[in-house]
């Protein structure tokens, strides 16, 4: 009796392992990965998926077997065996999850570190510089002065200038319900993000009104964008295409509509885009206009079409920060 059942167990174990290994690699649950970091995150997820599938099949299997095999016969009023515990078994099933958890924690740490998750904390020096470029909104923020002293930058990504070529810096401003991207080097202001492939990008992000979150699903990165405090994201895109940029933190009624796109293009195409934009910005009447001096309304009006913002939303944008101030006065 023992021998056949242990063979069954062995076969079941092998089957579960094979199914888990296969499904862990072929689940197809994640969108395309457009950066090396995203591939790392996917590898971690695949490992977790393999382990989870194995545990899922094991425990659901036990439950199904119990449901079928151990039903009480009609009229049988006797009890099952009086088994109150089994120390070796309990040690095994405590030890196995502990080991799995340690492996996952170390692996996650490794990937997190590779993504630059631990780097921003030494980048305090670069923070100060960023504020000078900090977009048109930042001057309005009373709180700015207090948080500039922070030595810990919040976010993910290699610190600028550390072990990399000079990254492309973009200032990101989140406001109800739009993203505004300012390229400090060229003065381009845009409602969608364009970046070259294979070059490090550093986003310095701040919110004008409430907390938003900057999410790039195809890059597996997300970071809250806060009023009064700067946060950063840094990454290298390695796949051309147009990807969604989504606000993931509840920011008000049209939160669901707060999205735009990020276009990853070849360096040549990117340079061309920069030129077109620069010409557009310097041509005609807008020569004298520095975006940081425009009011929100004037500034946004010209980009509303680009960003596909609906009329209703646009009405709210210029007023949002002001409303907030006045609403908070006692």
């Amino acid at each position, binding site marked *: 009796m023992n021998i056949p059942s242990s063979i069954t167990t062995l076969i079941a174990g092998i089957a579960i392992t094979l199914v888990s290994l296969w499904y862990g690699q072929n689940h197809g649950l994640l969108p395309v990965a457009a950066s090396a970091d995203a591939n790392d995150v996917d590898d971690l997820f695949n490992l*977790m998926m393999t382990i989870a599938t194995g545990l899922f099949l094991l425990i659901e299997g036990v439950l199904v077997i119990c449901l079928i095999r*151990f039903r009480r016969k009609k009229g049988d009023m006797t009890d099952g065996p009086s088994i109150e515990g089994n120390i070796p078994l309990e040690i095994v099933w405590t030890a196995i999850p502990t080991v799995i958890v340690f492996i996952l924690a170390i692996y996650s740490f490794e990937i997190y570190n590779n993504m630059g998750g631990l780097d921003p904390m030494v980048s305090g020096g670069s923070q100060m510089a960023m504020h000078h470029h900090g977009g048109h909104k930042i001057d309005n923020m009373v709180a700015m002065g207090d948080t500039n002293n922070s030595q810990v930058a919040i976010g993910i990504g290699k610190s600028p200038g550390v072990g990399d070529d000079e990254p492309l810096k973009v200032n990101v401003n989140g406001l109800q319900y739009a993203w505004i991207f300012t390229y400090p080097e060229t003065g381009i202001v845009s409602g969608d993000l364009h970046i070259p492939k294979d070059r490090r990008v550093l986003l310095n992000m701040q919110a004008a009104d409430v907390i938003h979150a900057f999410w790039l699903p195809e890059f597996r990165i997300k970071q809250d964008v806060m009023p009064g405090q700067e946060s950063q994201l840094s990454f290298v895109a390695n796949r051309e295409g147009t990807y969604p940029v989504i606000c993931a933190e509840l920011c008000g009624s049209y939160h669901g509509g707060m999205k735009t796109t990020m276009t990853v293009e070849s360096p040549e195409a990117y340079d061309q885009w920069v030129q077109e934009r620069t010409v557009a910005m310097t041509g005609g009447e807008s020569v004298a206009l520095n975006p940081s001096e425009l009011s929100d309304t004037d500034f946004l009006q010209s980009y509303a079409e680009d960003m596909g913002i609906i009329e209703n939303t646009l009405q709210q944008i210029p007023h949002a920060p002001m409303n907030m101030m006045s609403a908070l006065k006692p």
Partner: protein
Amino acid sequence: MSDATIHHGGDRKWTDYFTFCTDHKVIGIQYLVTSFLFYFVGGALAEVVRTELATPDPDFVSPEVYNQLFTMHGTIMIFLWIVPAGAAFANYLIPLMIGADDMAFPRLNAVAFWMQPVGGILLISSFFVGAPQAGWTSYPPLSLISGKWGEELWILCLLILGTASILGAINFVTTIFKMRIPDMDIHSMPLFCWAMLATSALILLSTPVLAAALILLSFDLMAGTAFFNPTGGGDPIVYQHLFWFYSHPAVYIMVLPFFGVISEVLPVHSRKPIFGYRAIAYSGLAISFLGLIVWAHHMFTSGTPGWLRMFFMATTMLVAVPTGIKIFSWCATLWGGKLQLNAALLFAIGFLSSFLMGGLTGVMLAAAPFDIHVHDTYFVVGHFHYVLFGGSVFALFSGVYHWYPKVTGKMYDEIWGKIHFVMTFVGFNMTFLPMHYLGMQGMNRRIALYDPQYQGINQICTWGSYILALSTLPFLVSMALGLIKGKVAGRNPWRALTLEWQTTSPPEIENFEEMPVLWAGPYEYGIDTESEDGDEDIEDMLTEVANVG
């Protein structure tokens, strides 16, 4: 039927349930019925939310109303459904399980209950002044600018319910430590009492912190201070730390009592001792302790420095170990047993199967690099519904069916109970399983309008939620049929060994005619059935007890 049953066999007038009654059993029922009423309100809100999400456009309700709906849904389900439902079980069962005649502080107990309807009505009345719409997390600065009075009512409601929860916890701890019958040492106490100890410890340690956060938020809102308001120099991230210091443990406050319920239901209906009594008891305490040091995993993408994320990643993952011990022990309890597949046990197995899923995705979410991708998406929505619906609610229904004969003295209708289980299980998985995929693909949560590419899967979720809503009908039918024409249950229809089954059904007003005798451990099943000359007392006692009444 004994004289005691006839004279005062726990028969209460229906009007007693609308009074400031200090009987813990009345209070238990008051809690349970009240929380079920709020469950139906919260569920109705969820159905509107799902109906809105059947199409990508905000066409069924406006985006503002949508935000109010999910904010109220979350708040009601957490603070007015699951937490008080746990308190309902604890109030009804703890004195009976330890052989006491009431809770340690009966009046405090009644006060704690009557704060529920007050808090609940206050919260629902906020619909008249513009309900809160900043989510149940109510993060500033959004919560400071999106409707003052609704937000203030929300704060008041939570302060009241938080206070009630602290009063309840004080009562549970004191009762468990001071009022057990003399024979019962702490290691022969039913596991539900252990679970309530762990829960109460969490409530006492973390709820005051939420109160602090809410009071400061209220100052910002009403008095123009700037604790959390960045325009005045405040730090909104501090609010998140204070909020999650309570609200992560709150997850365990919501599931630990139901872990206790499962530990009671499984041994009785599979006729086997609970596997690893001490492991289950202590792992509950371990979860309680670890629950206090994991809060920042809700903040991996907010203003949290990298090194801090790593600490919280490690502690969060560790929770998997005691949780795993419990799941394995419960499975081992079933294994080799003689399972009576009634609605109580089916819901318990449904709990195991769905909670497992929530646990597995929980470990994934603990891993910071992956969490950063799926934070604030439908993956998280799917995950926590597997934990809180698949975990708490399935176990709650299991407990309701299990103790129904004790509370009412009648048997529930088994057929409708099973229909209830099947519909709940199908509706639940259909609603929440596809959400994991949505989240990973790029659908963020708390949105009334979404990308049209997700419409198909959202419609599956919506249809699933309708099945889930309808599944409450067979439940009500089963309960009602039981009351109207259910078989008389007797003292101990399940032949269970814990003390509550030694008294009449429903228990008389002072609980026990005389001090109950501890003639077996709470889970000593199967000890004498196969021995020829062994101790047959237990079986005899059980048969005798089952026949009485």
